[in-house]
């Protein structure tokens, strides 16, 4: 009979070597600087805590994105997903948004989710662009499979880049027919959509070393934008 250790090895998907994502700094419309960096496996608990309150927010499909993202980050933390990575955007060390995805193989990537907490500053657009940058430029992949769960996502990815249909492939997110970002599409879109400065000065990187979370009420207000109806 196999030991627990042997069994665990069977339950874990085999991992590929993945290059690190070099951090970058982005000036936002507000003049604030967002540091985009890779999040380690050990940082998943704090990200899970950030996502949890959004599980019940129906607006703009935050609930389904949060629920799926929660499971993806949990799977990453507990070694139940193959070759996943997570990038976070931090403003003054506070989480503004996060994106994740995984490598299907050496040439094909699969985008999972983009979740923006600080809305109205195109944080999601910057982070999604960073995710594509990681697949194409740092992992050297040829294409990334993408779907959107919300109309906002569809406009941001499928229309803005624009992506190509690859309907013969069912995406892992619900079997929805996939769209694809190719190297050609990426480099055509890069001047419009991909930005950021490297290297990030050490002091700024140090300021983004620990992920701080905004308060739960702040997250809810930023995400829902609920204002009308209150005199």
């Amino acid at each position, binding site marked *: 009979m196999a030991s627990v250790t042997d069994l665990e090895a069977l339950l874990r998907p085999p991992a590929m070597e993945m290059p690190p994502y070099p951090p970058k700094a982005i000036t936002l419309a*507000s003049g604030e600087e967002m540091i985009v960096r890779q999040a380690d496996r050990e940082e998943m608990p704090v990200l899970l805590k950030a996502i949890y309150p959004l599980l019940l927010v129906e*607006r703009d499909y935050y609930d389904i994105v949060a629920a799926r993202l929660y499971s993806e980050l949990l799977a990453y933390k507990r070694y139940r997903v193959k070759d996943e990575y997570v990038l976070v955007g931090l403003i003054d060390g506070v989480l503004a948004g996060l994106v994740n995805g995984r490598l299907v193989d050496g040439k094909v990537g699969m985008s999972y989710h983009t979740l923006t907490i600080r809305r109205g500053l195109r944080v999601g657009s910057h982070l999604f662009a960073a995710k594509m940058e990681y697949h194409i430029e740092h992992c050297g992949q040829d294409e990334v499979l993408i779907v959107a769960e919300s109309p906002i996502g569809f406009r941001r990815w499928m229309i803005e880049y624009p992506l190509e249909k690859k309907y013969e492939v069912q995406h892992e997110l619900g079997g929805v027919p996939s769209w694809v970002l190719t190297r050609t599409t990426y480099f055509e879109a890069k001047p*419009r959509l991909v930005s950021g400065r490297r290297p990030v000065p050490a002091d700024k990187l140090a300021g983004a070393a620990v992920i701080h979370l905004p308060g739960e009420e702040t997250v809810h207000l930023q995400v829902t934008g609920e204002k009308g109806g209150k005199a």
Partner: protein
Amino acid sequence: MRPVYVVGAGMTRFGRSEWPLVDLAATASLAALHHANLGKTPVDAVVVANMGAGRINRQTAIASALVDRLSLWPAAAEAVENGPASGASAVKVGYQAIAAGMAEVVLVTGVEMMRAVDGLEATDFVASLSHPEAEYIYGVTLPSLAGLFTRLYMDRYGVERRHLALVAIKNHDNAMKNPYAHIHQPVTMEGILTSPEAAVNNPPVAEPLHMFDCCPVSDGAAAVVLASQEVASKLGAPRVLVAGIGQATDTHAVQERQDPTDLKAVRLASAAAFERAGAKPSDIDVAELHDAFTILEIAESEAAGFFKVGQAHKAVERGETALTGKLPINPSGGLKAKGHPVGATGVAQIVELTWQLRGEATGRQIAKAKTAYACNFGGFGNNVVATVLRKEER
């Protein structure tokens, strides 16, 4: 004509609302009625400004619905649809009722719930005000008209994108001081124009206009209570006189105008309002302009007579239109940052100016404001209502 006073003003926070349309209107109305403190004086009529409820929210006859929601029967009720100028038109209808002696107290409420549909449909809905054969069928939208207008203005008067950005920065800063504003987010020149990332942060909408040159799509409601002199004199609050209202129209299709950069309807409506008020542009202490696009704040301030044509962008650069400037424009944050629920906008301008004249605009109060001006710009400048308000010392 009898004098007419604004005796109460209130609004909801602009932004995204989960409330039903009439509840939103009722909330602003109750705030205004509470502000007016009418006691047992009845409301004789209710005028509701709205542009798209029939199409966007599948609800019509909302003035009747609002009277019922507020239990104001048997007050007269009617709705006014006049495109983005619906709000000021509704104020004008209420004003006329009192001035003519048909009513003593009129509640005027503007309301719009545009976020019930997505941005593309909202843009298409607003575009339906354009000329159906000369503009709309060719895909013309309000941002595209504004983009063409801006290009001409830049070519003719030397306006640059940084001037437009200065308007946006100012109005976002002002909105930070307004708890009712849709957008509570300051922006910087670096963030929206000069940094390498600005191209991503502030993408083009209709060149040369970019995202931060355009107002958001908003839900919201605003209301004012108008009263006759007899009623106003019994109330203890400061009196705000509707000193003059002017309205003018222009060709429906922008292409038919002799000079598309000449906002003739703004010019004529403003002149009429000033004449009726016995005032001139230099008397104005604070103004709310219809900056659905940043260029419009610049162009309207010239057409209204505050600056010579081609000079307003320089005044913006000198800080003359800031809260502490010679003529503060859009202390509320304007449509740009306070938001633009189209039917509510014209009423919200009067709400802001009433608060300013009563010294109640906490955090953004213009010192010693006595005379105020509003420009509600309908269509693409083809139907404009200008209003001058004056504080009367008791």
